[in-house]
Each structure stands twice: as structure tokens, then as C-alpha cells.
């Protein structure tokens, strides 16, 4: 039986972080389809307009236009149950709590690596 294609939405404003994350996702086995959004507002649009649901959303915290907390809230407000993993360099308890309250399922710290993404993919049975 063919393995299901993994569709990931990577929400991150800095290009270098997107480039590294994309490569790390591919190396971890989760990079079949990786769409990108440079801020929360674009992320909400991508989720709303996606031809097929994403299997995973990696959500940065601090972004222009709309931050990760608000984007997470809006995505959940649309009834979308796709796992959302918050990504931030500030791993303060208040930050993590704010994301979980907004509707994220998990939190991981920057920088992303093949190992961290491997754990996430395994947790949500995407590996």
C-alpha cells in the first residue's frame, strides 16, 4: 500500500528559517508537500483555500500582519482540527500556555532540526 502524502503548512516570516525547516522536514520524512506562509493572515488563507486538508501546521509566534497566536485562534475558529505545532525561540511557559489556549496541540523551540521534526511527525503519526 502506498504511503500517504504528508502535507505541511510552514508558517514563518524569515526566509532562512523557512529554508532550513523545509530541508529538515524533508530529511525527517515529512516533506512531501510543504506550503509556506510568511505571516498568520496568509496562513489562515492557505488553510481556508487548501484543496486538501493539511496534515500538520508549523506556526511561528512572532510575525508581521498577524502573529501565530491569532492565526491559531482563527484556524480553530474555522473548525479545522489539523495538528498545529507552535514554534518559537522564546520557550517561556507563558508563551507555551498562550499558544495552547489559542488551540495549538504542541510546542517546539527554534531552531528546527531533523530530530525535532522527527519527534513531531511521530507524535502525530505522520512518519
Amino acid at each position, binding site marked *: 500500500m502506498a504511503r500517504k502524502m504528508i502535507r505541511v503548512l510552514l508558517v514563518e516570516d524569515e526566509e*532562512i*528559517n523557512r529554508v532550513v525547516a523545509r530541508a529538515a522536514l524533508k530529511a525527517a520524512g515529512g516533506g512531501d508537500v510543504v506550503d509556506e506562509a510568511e505571516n498568520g493572515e496568509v496562513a489562515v488563507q492557505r488553510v481556508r483555500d487548501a484543496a486538501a486538508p493539511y496534515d500538520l501546521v508549523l506556526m511561528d509566534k512572532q510575525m508581521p500582519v498577524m502573529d501565530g497566536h491569532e492565526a491559531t485562534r482563527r484556524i480553530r475558529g474555522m473548525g479545522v482540527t489539523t495538528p498545529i505545532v507552535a514554534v518559537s525561540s522564546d520557550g517561556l511557559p507563558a508563551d507555551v500556555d498562550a499558544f495552547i489556549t489559542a488551540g495549538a496541540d504542541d510546542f517546539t523551540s527554534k531552531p528546527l532540526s531533523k530530530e525535532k521534526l522527527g519527534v513531531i511527525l511521530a507524535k502525530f503519526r505522520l512518519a
Partner: protein
Amino acid sequence: MDYSNLRRQAASMKKSLFDQGYLDEQFCQVEDLQDEASPNFVEEVVTLFFKDSGRLMSNIEQALEKYPRDFNRWDTYMQQLKGSCSSIGASRMKNECMSFRDSCGQGNVEGCMRSFQKVKREHAVLRQKLESYFQLLRQAGPAGAATRPVM
């Protein structure tokens, strides 16, 4: 040309970058993402880092001038730069970014200015060292980046 000698020099240079704290483990993580499909991935990412960080530093410099004592704005810009540094393992530069953010938190303008000068210095030094490293790697040939430094 003695390629094995060049590879030894490249490995030694890389070890030195780690020993002196310029780079941390994240750089090795980025190297691990390089493969046959992306044979120049590390150099491409580092090139992108210096392009990005140049822009971010310019934003910070303008903000320091145009928005006096706007610590929130300064901190936001510096957090972006710190994030970029983390992505490639630019450890010393990242630490100076953190010092700047600490000064923002304390409302310490002089501290911010001092830290920013250090960020700029570390950026220039790292750029020069990594340019030399990649030049050596190119001369050494495809196996030049194979070794992880013993730390």
C-alpha cells in the same frame, strides 16, 4: 594539488570556529541536511543568512536612530536577527543579540548601543571566517565537509 591536505585544513578551520564559539551544534544540523540533491545547501543557507542579517541589522540601525527609546521596536527587530543566528548556529552573534535584548528589557540605551556594535563586529568576523572556510572547502572538493569536529 594536495586535496587531502586542503581537507585537513578545512576540518581544522571548522574545529576552530567551534572551539572559539563562533558556531554551535546547529551548524552541524544544517550540514546534515546537505545531500546529493542539495550539494551546496550549507553555503546557500549561509549566504542567505548574511543577506538576511544585513537587512535586519540595517533595520535595527535605522530604528535606533529614528525611534529613540522604543525598546519594544528595537527588541522585536533584534529577536528576528537572533532567530536567524540560531538557524545556522551563529553562536557568538546570537549571544550578543541576547545581550542587546537584555538591555532593551532594562531600558538601557547605552547598553543597547554597545551591544549593537558588538553584534556588528561579530557579524563581520563571522562573515570573513565563513567565507574563508567555504573557499577552502571549494578548493578541497566534494568530501571537504564530511567530518564533524570532535568537541
